[in-house]
C-alpha cells in the first residue's frame, strides 16, 4: 500500500481544517507533508491524527512539518523547559559555548527566528544568544 494511502485521512483532515500551502511528496517509501496551519490547535489535531494512524509514529514513514501561521511576528516567548534553565549559546548548536541562561518560565525577547530549531533571544538581563526553539513558546500580544 503506498504510504500516501495510509495517511490519506491525515491529508483530508489537513485540507478540511484549512491548512494552506500543502505539499505532499512521497520518496522511497517515505511521505513528506508540509503545510501552514491556521492555528496551533489544528497542528495538534494533525499530530494526533498521525499518532492514531501510526501509533507512536514508529513506522518512520512520515516526515511532517506543519507550521502555524503567525499573523504577527513573534517578539517574545515564554521559556517552557520542564524545570531547568534554558541555555543561551553563542551560535545555533549545542557545540556552541553557553553565553547565558534564561530562567524557567521567564519571558524573553525573540530577536529573530534564525531557523525552525534555533532562535536568537535576549533576556531581560541583556544576555543575548541562541536558544533551542523547542523550549520557547511564542507569546502573542494581547490587545
Amino acid at each position, binding site marked *: 500500500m503506498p504510504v500516501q494511502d495510509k495517511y490519506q485521512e491525515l491529508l483530508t483532515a489537513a485540507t478540511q481544517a484549512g491548512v494552506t500551502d500543502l505539499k505532499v511528496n512521497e520518496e522511497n517509501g517515505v511521505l513528506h507533508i508540509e503545510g501552514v496551519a491556521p492555528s496551533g490547535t489544528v497542528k495538534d489535531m494533525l499530530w494526533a491524527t498521525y499518532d492514531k494512524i501510526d501509533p507512536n509514529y514508529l513506522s*518512520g514513514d512520515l516526515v511532517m512539518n506543519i507550521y502555524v501561521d503567525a499573523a504577527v511576528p513573534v517578539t517574545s516567548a515564554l521559556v517552557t523547559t520542564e524545570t531547568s534553565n534554558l541555555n543561551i549559546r553563542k551560535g545555533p548548536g549545542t557545540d556552541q559555548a553557553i553565553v547565558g541562561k534564561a530562567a524557567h518560565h521567564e519571558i524573553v525577547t525573540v530577536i529573530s527566528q534564525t531557523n*525552525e530549531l534555533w532562535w536568537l533571544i535576549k533576556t531581560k538581563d541583556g544576555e543575548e544568544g541562541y536558544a533551542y526553539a523547542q523550549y520557547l513558546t511564542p507569546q502573542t500580544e494581547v490587545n
Partner: protein
Amino acid sequence: MKKHFTFLLMIAAITIGFTACKSKPKDADIKAAVEKALSADPMSAGTTVAVDKGVVTLSGECKDEMCKKHCEEMTAAIKDVKSVVNNCTVAAPPPPPSQEANPVVANEQAIMDALKDQPGLKGMMKDGKIVLSGEIAKAKWQMLKQTLDKLKPAGYDLTGLKIK
C-alpha cells in the same frame, strides 16, 4: 622712451609667461604627490591614482566608507589638486557570523542538539535517515518527533526505539 617701454613690456611678458609656465602643475607631479601621501597611510593602501589636468581620479577598493572618504580628503588637501573624482569602491562587508541565515540541515550535530536532553536515547544519521534507539516517554517522544521532522530527514529507522 617708447623703446624703453617696449623693452619693459617684453620683460613683463617674459616674466608672466615664465611664471605661468612654472606655476602650471604637472599631472605627473601631482600623481606622485598623491601616491606618496596615500601610500604613507595604511588605510589608503591599494588605491590607484590617475591625474588629468589637476583632476585626480581615485580608484581601487577601500575597506569601508570612512576609508573612502579619508582617501578623498587626503587627496584634496594636496597642493595643485583641483578636484577629486572618487571612484573607489567599498569592499562588501564581511559576511555576518555564520550563525545568521542558518538553514536547518539534518546532520549528526542537529541530532545531538535534539537529543541533548534525552539521555536514554541514541541517535545517528544513516543514508539520510535518522536512526534512534533507546527508551523515551511518550509525551517527550511526541515533542521530539516534531523537532526531528524539522530536520527533514529522508525517513526514520525506529526499530530500536521503545516508547514508555
